[in-house]
């Protein structure tokens, strides 16, 4: 029986297009003019009563957020413990390898904190024209609301500094270690072998081997 009543109310609400969203409420707000008219008519009956309040008096005015201007270049900082590879550089795009997947940062990106996995960071000083790639072993990336991007890596090297033979050998070595440790060996050794496979697989694909 109550269900029927609820349905009846909803139907009636639909007919009268009553909505509870603040936006709609603002439109239904009594304007200053109509408030004054009402108060003047009320004055005749007021006596010693206080003036009635209007709901809009209690609603905070919605701040009109001007579209905060998006800068046309990203302010990019790229740090490793021993050096600042980029300090306040103006770039167009940075591609980052996060543990949750690869993503690109352009001016106006939503503020984000991302943990980086071993992979390639591509810095586009000029979109697709001037690109520098670094392999990072891991770290964090912070994208701030004003489009300043900080990438902090434990170790980062230009791709040209990586030795392909060492990568192939390392990948084979750690894959072998991981296979031989399956089920036995303690947790640390297993984790270290998995980390090795992760790093060397990433190096492998970064070099296109």
């Amino acid at each position: 029986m109550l269900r029927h009543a609820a349905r009846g109310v909803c139907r009636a609400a639909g007919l009268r297009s009553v909505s509870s969203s603040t936006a709609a409420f603002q439109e239904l707000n009594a304007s200053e003019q109509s408030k004054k008219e009402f108060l003047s008519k009320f004055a005749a009956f007021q006596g010693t009563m206080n003036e009635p309040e209007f709901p809009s008096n209690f609603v905070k005015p919605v701040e009109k957020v001007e579209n905060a201007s998006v800068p046309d270049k990203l302010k990019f900082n790229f740090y490793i413990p021993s050096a600042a590879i980029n300090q306040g550089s103006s770039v167009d795009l940075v591609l980052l390898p996060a543990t949750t997947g690869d993503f690109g940062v352009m001016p106006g990106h939503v503020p984000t904190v991302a943990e980086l996995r071993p992979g390639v960071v591509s810095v586009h000083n000029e979109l697709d024209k001037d690109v520098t790639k670094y392999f990072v072993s891991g770290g964090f990336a912070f994208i701030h609301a004003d489009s300043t991007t900080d990438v902090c890596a434990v170790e980062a090297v230009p791709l040209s500094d990586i030795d392909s033979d060492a990568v192939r050998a390392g990948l084979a070595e750690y894959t072998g270690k991981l296979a031989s440790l399956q089920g036995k060996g303690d947790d640390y050794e297993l984790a270290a072998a998995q980390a090795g496979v992760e790093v060397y697989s990433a190096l492998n694909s970064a070099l296109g081997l």
Partner: protein
Amino acid sequence: MTYNKYAGLCADMLRAALKEPAKTKAKAREAIYYRSAVWENGQPTKQVITDITEGTSGKLS
């Protein structure tokens, strides 16, 4: 295995895969040397020297 150890381990593995001039420079960064002491009643009692010169890559513990 803590996050710090994992992050250091990944960095060591990367350094091991570098080409020569960059490799020696990076290896120098890998070395860890410090001396720590346990203090009791204002006196240092035990001195421990931690000296890791080759980094942790390749060693599975």
